[in-house]
């Protein structure tokens, strides 16, 4: 698996909190990778879930990784602060 971008959002295409997180990142004008795990299938999905488990053992979404720091759920202030420290 290639080195993830400084900001990676692990999300579900149907999840409202993931949608709000994406909208927030877009408003902040940052570039990020967004991976819709529900759109992955088979071994690709399994590998991605195993990877996410190392970041967020609860395997919940959204999980956002900013410079190696994981933020679980759409937590605006925490994301804002992590972006400031980029």
């Amino acid at each position, binding site marked *: 698996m290639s080195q993830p971008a400084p900001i990676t959002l692990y999300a579900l295409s149907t999840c*409202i*909190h993931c*949608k709000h997180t994406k909208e927030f990142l877009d408003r902040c004008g940052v570039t990020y990778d967004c991976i819709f795990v*529900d759109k992955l299938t088979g071994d690709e999905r*399994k590998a991605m879930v195993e990877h996410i488990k190392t970041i967020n*053992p*609860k*395997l*919940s979404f959204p999980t956002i990784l900013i410079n190696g720091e994981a933020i679980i*759920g759409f937590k605006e202030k925490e994301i804002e602060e992590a972006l400031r420290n980029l």
Partner: protein
Amino acid sequence: MTTKELYEKLKSIQEPKGYFFNKDMQMTMDLLESLLVNKERYGYMACPCRLASGKLDLDRDILCPCVYREPDVAEYGACYCGLYVSQDWNEGRIPHVTVPERRDPEKLLAALANGED
């Protein structure tokens, strides 16, 4: 079924039980739309904010309304995805916080190992 039809149908069933739709109508309609997407995709309305496996018997706990709604609404005033809330939550008498995931991740992993995808 349209999201509006689903809204009317569920509202009449769930409100008498004390579960109200999120007053943020955009959020409520988005979530109902996602339930219809999952119904189309999996054949059942899996929770929009959880990774479904595609196998009903492995996803029964996250069939909307999920089994976690009751404890979540009792504790936080809202279910995990934010579709169903308490009256206190909707009327701002309790704080709106991010509801943590109550589901055991092992269920997801088990479903992944045996699921369709």
